[in-house]
């Protein structure tokens, strides 16, 4: 087991999941409650990482944050380094790559909140902010946990984007999934198998948390 790679992976996934939790709540609220007709365009952008090859996302990120663009020059000015081959670069890439895994569970959670409750809250004088804080988020909190767990797990499992944006620098950008690839390349099957098993068990455990939580959902507040 490559422990530095393990620590790096957990650090990357935790940071990504936390950023996504904060970022996705307003996005999901907007998707569910906005009346705008063109919001499907934004929804499609958010869902892109589900269908695009990770290498394509990585490629465009490298271009977007390269020295050839204003964004890239601004990033270099603020961070003191270009994005490629850094841990921060990996975090940015992971946030984009796992975005649908955080937004989609929240969208379905928020949508499941009974419209009658929202109507009742409005007649009781509640504006949007109060409805979100006091009604929607408390009733849909299992979907926030699902979003957190899925974006964490998905980040742990990413490979193509990491390789494109981060490369394979020990302690900086070498995550577990890259480490496994390295081990196999070096015909070091015993070590690869050990790491792979850890990821397998870990992924199964996280998915059990997600599905267990969702099957219990009606127990929390009832369905009335």
């Amino acid at each position, binding site marked *: 087991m490559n422990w530095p790679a393990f620590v790096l992976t957990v650090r990357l996934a935790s940071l990504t999941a936390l950023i996504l939790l904060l970022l996705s709540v307003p996005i999901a609220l907007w998707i569910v409650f906005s009346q705008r007709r063109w919001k499907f365009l934004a929804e499609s952008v958010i869902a892109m990482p589900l269908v695009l090859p990770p290498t394509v996302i990585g490629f465009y990120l490298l271009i977007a944050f390269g020295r050839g663009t204003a964004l890239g020059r601004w990033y270099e000015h603020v961070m003191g380094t270009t994005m490629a081959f850094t841990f921060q670069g990996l975090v940015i890439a992971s946030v984009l790559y796992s975005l649908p895994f955080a937004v989609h569970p929240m969208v379905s959670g928020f949508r499941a909140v009974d419209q009658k*409750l929202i*109507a*009742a809250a*409005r*007649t*009781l004088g509640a504006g949007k902010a109060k409805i979100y804080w006091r009604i929607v988020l408390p*009733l849909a909190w299992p979907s926030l946990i699902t979003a957190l767990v899925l974006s964490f797990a998905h980040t742990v499992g990413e490979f193509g984007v990491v390789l494109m944006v981060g490369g394979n620098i020990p302690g900086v950008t070498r995550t577990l999934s890259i480490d496994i690839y390295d081990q196999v390349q070096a015909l070091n099957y015993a070590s690869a198998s050990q790491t792979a098993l850890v990821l397998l068990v870990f992924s199964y455990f996280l998915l059990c948390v997600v599905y267990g939580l969702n099957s219990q959902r009606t127990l929390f507040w009832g369905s009335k």
Partner: protein
Amino acid sequence: MLDVEFQAASGVTVIFGPSGAGKSTILQCLAGLLRPDSGRVSIGGETVFDSSRKINIPAQLRRVGYLFQDLALFPHMTAAENIGFGIRVNGQEKVRRVEEMLERFHISRVAAHRPEEISGGERQRVALARALATEPRLLLLDEPFSALDDSLKRGIMADLKQWLGSTGVPALFVTHDRSEAEALGQRMLLLHEGKIAGSEEF
């Protein structure tokens, strides 16, 4: 299609008609939950909707109490929290107002319980207290008593009648139950296929 014109004085005006006649739709337009294609709605002299002048005050500013058919109590809040939700003051004053409503509707016993933990009649009273705690200018009742048995219904309607009498707030009461209509209402509008087909005084 719904096309109606009426005025409701203080007291309880019943909107009576078969299901599908557009009774609930009228209430939703008054509360601001639905937007009529055209027309005018005013409450207590204030115009809250006027299609020709492009006025549409949002629901949360209309100060209209709404009692839903399925009550729509917030399942994650206690009875007291439900009642306090719409009260516009904070701190001690809010606590006092919630206690007053709990006592007035005889539900102090269940103040700390969530809706799923209390009986149907108690839920009804919590929903009523929640709608009235905001001191609405108009109360809308959308068949809220249809699920209750007669003795529970009578008790709640008596408390409601007393509250409406003491505050002078007008109420619109949607029902398809003639005995409910006569027990609570002062006058009745008959709704048929989206139009007012007649009216009656009690």
